[in-house]
């Protein structure tokens, strides 16, 4: 079950002609796919594409009715490989994943797919995770399109433009026998808006119908000698066909006056930011009228030389607005203009940063700089020659506002694993540790500070390979999540460690889902999924590839046990990789499942026990060692009102879900006796109430007895 349910929104996918769709970008794209008559869809989750995968999963019934196949692929490479269905058959297909990481994984399949080319339209929808809030390394996907000769679509970020380009993208793909990449930036995926819907189209043929009449055409297989011919075919036939199609159907757009001394060439995805910057300069309206000519590239690869030259001709200067590096578009435009012997000056990264996101102020500054040089008369005097210094002193010192990095959620089952690891490290000394991709990578940040590298999904243990010789000193420790394990970690990391007789320790963090991407089910998920086969044991898989030393822990919150197991793995005499499978359900997903159930029991008067933790303020001495071993958001600090104390004490707020990590850590690390758990039984039975009454009555008498011998104060010492 995914983190976010789209069951309600999915109803919008049934809309037909004449109706208006209103919702998020990613849902609109799904609708456009159905209107384009796709025969099959798939992909791999990861922000900002997770929501699209969740929409597809929630829409499975509707898609089955339409005859559309949906697959949750094993990886981005597997997803791209699925597009092979479009190679020989006139089937439209689309897969989605995040980029650039997903495209890196997919590039093998993409290169093969691109070489032979396709018959049916093949589309890869990528969520470009670049800029603020991104969880990954910063790169752009443009180079992949260039090297494989596939076409890169980059629509203006509004629902009508985006959905229209989906249909046009399939047509372009078919007209040029080339797969296309549909690039959506992270905010565009989540932009809320509306567009006029069309009717969904049944694929014809369907995948099942196509399969019934198998086809093969050697010319479309990437194998010599066809591969040499395909390399030429890409350039001599498909590329010109793409340029002709783009021109004929007007995929790129021109706005603003026909004649002006300057103009802007921009990626479609930059359009709204450029417009807003122009508005701030008084050169455009909210409705999109602009005084500066814009050439908007909804297709950023390939460029259409005739269009570029036509736009630049008779202009003094053109600014290329291209987010990220390298500046492929700017370089290509410069070359085109140079070869066409035009005098137009092409500028770009002189005014806008080579690296980093083009935010509102960056864009405005870049445009202002360009206009000051080439069209100063378009700027107001204040902008032309500003009096104020460019960089006013910061209003708040940077340190006045503390950074707020992400971390494990309240009750996260991965927290106790990391606490135990930290305790083992305190015992054994520092350990060479590698991380992987997934929530568990938060351990690399404070307060755990565990691990020094993350090399990619399923590659955590693989990245410790150089340190894995037996007898080479203290063992290495690697983390890998269940998501990474099934993505490719089983082969890349585990089997290969067996093969190389690696001596390291591998902790498999099993939280029952691909949790970091939003809680999608995977092979080892414990849930019954009506359309997928789940509940496949990680332990069996690990043993199946030859790991001898395997420990399964079914409650990661048992910190002493967790600690003892890691300690044993780090020190045992057994040869070969040591694998600990640490399993507990992702708390975010568990709470989503159990909270309504609890509410129902409360309403119906059924007995229900809810645990929550507390800290004895008087017992806590304010050292915060517990926090350094936990980082739980609900374990926080509280100022005491006691003038004798200098430091705030630990405090557990109302959001505690009673996972027990803090108490377990206090036990395992022998920290302090401040923690207690209160199990509140709602709607208790008469017996339970009676037993408590008796206990409490005797206890109260004893308490009275002791306090009578003690000096009493107005307020309690605690």
């Amino acid at each position, binding site marked *: 079950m995914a983190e976010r349910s789209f069951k309600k929104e999915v109803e919008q996918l049934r809309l037909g002609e004449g109706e208006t769709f*209103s919702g998020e970008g990613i849902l609109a794209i799904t609708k456009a796919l159905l209107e384009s008559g796709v025969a099959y869809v798939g992909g791999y989750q990861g922000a900002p594409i997770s929501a699209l995968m969740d929409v597809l999963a929630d829409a499975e019934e509707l898609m089955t009715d339409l005859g559309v196949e949906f697959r949750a692929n094993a990886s981005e490479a597997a997803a791209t490989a699925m597009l092979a269905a479009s190679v020989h058959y006139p089937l439209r297909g689309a897969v989605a994943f995040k980029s650039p990481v997903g495209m890196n994984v997919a590039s093998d399949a993409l290169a093969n797919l691109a070489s032979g080319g396709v018959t049916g339209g093949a589309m890869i929808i990528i969520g470009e*995770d670049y800029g603020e*809030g*991104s969880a990954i390394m910063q790169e752009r996907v443009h180079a992949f399109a260039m090297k494989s000769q596939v076409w890169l679509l980059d629509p203006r970020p509004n629902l009508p433009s985006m959905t229209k380009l989906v249909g046009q993208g399939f047509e372009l793909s078919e007209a040029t026998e080339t797969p296309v990449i549909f690039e959506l930036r992270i905010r*565009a995926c*989540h*932009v*809320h808006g509306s567009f006029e819907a069309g009717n969904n189209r049944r694929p014809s043929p369907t995948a099942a119908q196509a399969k019934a009449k198998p086809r093969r055409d050697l010319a479309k297989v990437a194998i010599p000698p066809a591969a040499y011919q395909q390399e030429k075919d890409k350039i001599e036939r498909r590329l010109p066909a793409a340029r002709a199609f783009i021109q004929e159907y007007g995929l790129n757009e021109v706005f603003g006056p026909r004649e002006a001394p300057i103009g802007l060439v921009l990626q479609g995805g930059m359009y709204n930011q450029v417009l*807003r*910057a122009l508005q701030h300069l*008084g*050169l*455009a309206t*909210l*409705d*999109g009228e602009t*005084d500066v000519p814009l050439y908007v590239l909804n297709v950023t690869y390939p460029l259409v030389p005739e269009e570029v030259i036509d736009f630049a001709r008779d202009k003094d200067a053109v600014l290329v607005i291209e987010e990220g590096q390298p500046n492929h578009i700017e370089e290509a435009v410069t070359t085109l203009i140079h070869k066409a012997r035009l005098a137009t000056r092409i500028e770009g990264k002189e005014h806008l940063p080579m690296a980093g996101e083009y935010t*509102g102020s960056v864009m405005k500054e870049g445009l202002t700089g360009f206009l000051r040089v080439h069209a100063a008369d378009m700027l*107001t005097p204040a902008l032309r020659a500003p009096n104020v210094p460019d960089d006013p002193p*910061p209003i*708040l010192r940077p340190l*006045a*506002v503390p950074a*707020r990095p992400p*971390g*494990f*959620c309240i009750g996260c089952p991965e927290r106790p694993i990391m606490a135990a690891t930290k305790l083992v490290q305190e015992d054994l000394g520092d350990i060479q540790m590698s991380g992987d991709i997934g929530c568990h990578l*938060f351990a690399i940040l*404070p*307060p755990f500070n565990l691990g020094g590298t993350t090399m990619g999904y399923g590659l955590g243990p693989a990245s410790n390979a150089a340190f894995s010789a037996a007898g080479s000193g203290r063992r290495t420790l690697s983390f890998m999540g269940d998501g990474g394990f099934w993505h490719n970690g089983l082969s890349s990391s585990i089997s290969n460690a067996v093969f190389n007789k690696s001596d390291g320790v591998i902790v498999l963090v099993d939280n029952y889902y691909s949790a970091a991407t939003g809680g999608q089910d995977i092979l080892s998920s414990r849930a019954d999924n009506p359309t997928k086969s789940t509940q496949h044991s990680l332990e069996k898989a690990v043993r199946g590839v030859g790991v001898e030393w395997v420990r399964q822990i079914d409650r990661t919150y048992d910190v002493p046990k967790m600690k003892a197991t890691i300690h044993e793995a780090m020190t045992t005499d057994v040869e070969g990789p040591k694998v600990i499978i640490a399993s507990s359900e992702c708390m975010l997903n568990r709470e989503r499942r159990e909270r309504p159930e609890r509410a129902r029991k409360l309403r119906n008067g059924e007995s229900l026990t809810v645990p929550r933790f*507390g800290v004895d303020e008087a017992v806590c*001495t304010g050292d*915060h*060692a517990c926090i*350094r071993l936990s*980082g739980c958001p609900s374990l*926080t*600090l509280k100022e005491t009102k006691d*003038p*004798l104390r200098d*430091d705030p004490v630990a405090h557990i707020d109302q959001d505690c879900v009673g996972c027990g990590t803090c108490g377990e850590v*206090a036990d395992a690390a*022998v920290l*302090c*006796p401040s923690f*207690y758990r*209160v*199990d*509140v039984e709602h709607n*208790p039975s008469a017996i339970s109430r009676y037993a*408590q009454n008796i*206990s*409490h009555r005797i206890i109260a008498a004893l308490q009275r007895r*002791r306090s009578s011998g003690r*000096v*009493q*104060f*107005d307020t*309690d*010492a605690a």
Partner: protein
Amino acid sequence: MTRLDRIAARRGTPQESGLISLAILAVGGQGGGVLTKLIVELAEANGYFAQSTYVPGVAQRTGATLYYVEIAPRRSVPPVFSLMPSEGHVDVVIAAELMEAGRAVQRGIVTSDRTLLLASNHRILTIGEKAVPGDGTVEPDEVQSALFDEAKRSIVFDMQRMASETGSHISTVMFGALAGSQALPFDRAAFERVMQANARSDADLLAFARAYDLKPVSGQKDEIPTGLSVKPSGLDAFEHRLSGLPDSVRPMAEAGLKKIVDYQDIAYGEEYLDGVEDAVERGRDGTFAEAFAKHLANAMCYMDILRVADLKTRASRFARIEQEFTKGATPTYRVTEFLHPRGEEFIATLPAGLAERIDRSERAKRMVDRILNKGRRITSNRLGGFLALYAIAGMSVWRRKLFRHRQEMRWISRWRDLAFDIVAEDPALATEVVRAQRLIKGYGDTHARGSGHYDKVIEGIGLVRGRADAADWARRFIAAALADESGAALDGALATVRGFVDVGPQ
């Protein structure tokens, strides 16, 4: 004027065209997305185009999040909305936590010519603040005043408290406050219709109404008393001795005395006052004696098994837990204590003579530890568990005879002697010696680490003693020891001092 200038002059700013932009800053999990959805619904139901965006991903896991909304009156063509806020052009900023409001100011999206700032002034501490062994919380004053200085209008109050008090959620309170601010061109009824359609319970409607009616208030903080304003009763026996203390020392001595008597008995209180009076006599001003009164009380009330058992078996604790966890309803509940006393703590609780013999033998110590050192879960509000703790707490009548007490008293006398030795020549430095007691806290390893830091600080004080800036250095040592657990900062400070001390006298 050129042709283009004339065109430019016709263009209004986005806001003049009816655009209203809103940015919502929250901590992941606070419901920024819910509020965003409410605002979009409100705008679309009332003749406006609306667009919202956000950056999902890891920030939703407890990090800082930003949602952005733009709305504009309906027109023939849909407006071109921006996908992110531009500095200096945001009309409404809603921040669900004090430092997130500060972050909005830092990002430049709160400006005095335009922005209405709606902010909750409660704190959700960051991990960086919480993890410091001492007090790492960032001073809120700078942000507090920036919220008022930098915005055109500010509505700042504790939205989280209002949400808890009404049983609702902070996103609902923010929506109510937004309605009440009248920053958007929609009336109360329009807001209420959206609220009605989205309310999960009556609590949401109540929270909305209360936030709507709220008058803008300035940021206010609960006063934390630094002295005792109410004179405690039960100290009659000490009335005479307390009144003999200087005004600057008396409140702290009263607080200390109260803690001491509560910890042990009247006689222990007399011992304590002996020490305080001694300090008053030796110190030139009240600062030294006040610090001494504070830290002597803390040192004398060391945390041992008896004290923990005592605190955990008190009626007042039972009442507090019942109040906090059952909220006046009538469920049953069980309180489970997470205890892990080590062999050392058991030995410390033995009579001094016996314990010292065990303490001398490593083998005996190891054996005791092997048998006794394990985690113990005790249900303290059921008879069995309670009686065990109650019996341990009852042992405090013999506390003075126990090994731990002897150890603590030895420590106190060394500490006191050093401070008294220095106070005549350098009262400020002596005060820092006294304050270094603060470093000793916690249990087990934490306690051992704190003691180690204390020893290093005292060693450092030995190095700088006699210098004019000795007290400043001592303060630096203590701050360094509290700043990080590893003690690296403290070692660094000590190395610096050794560097110039070795060179010779200044």
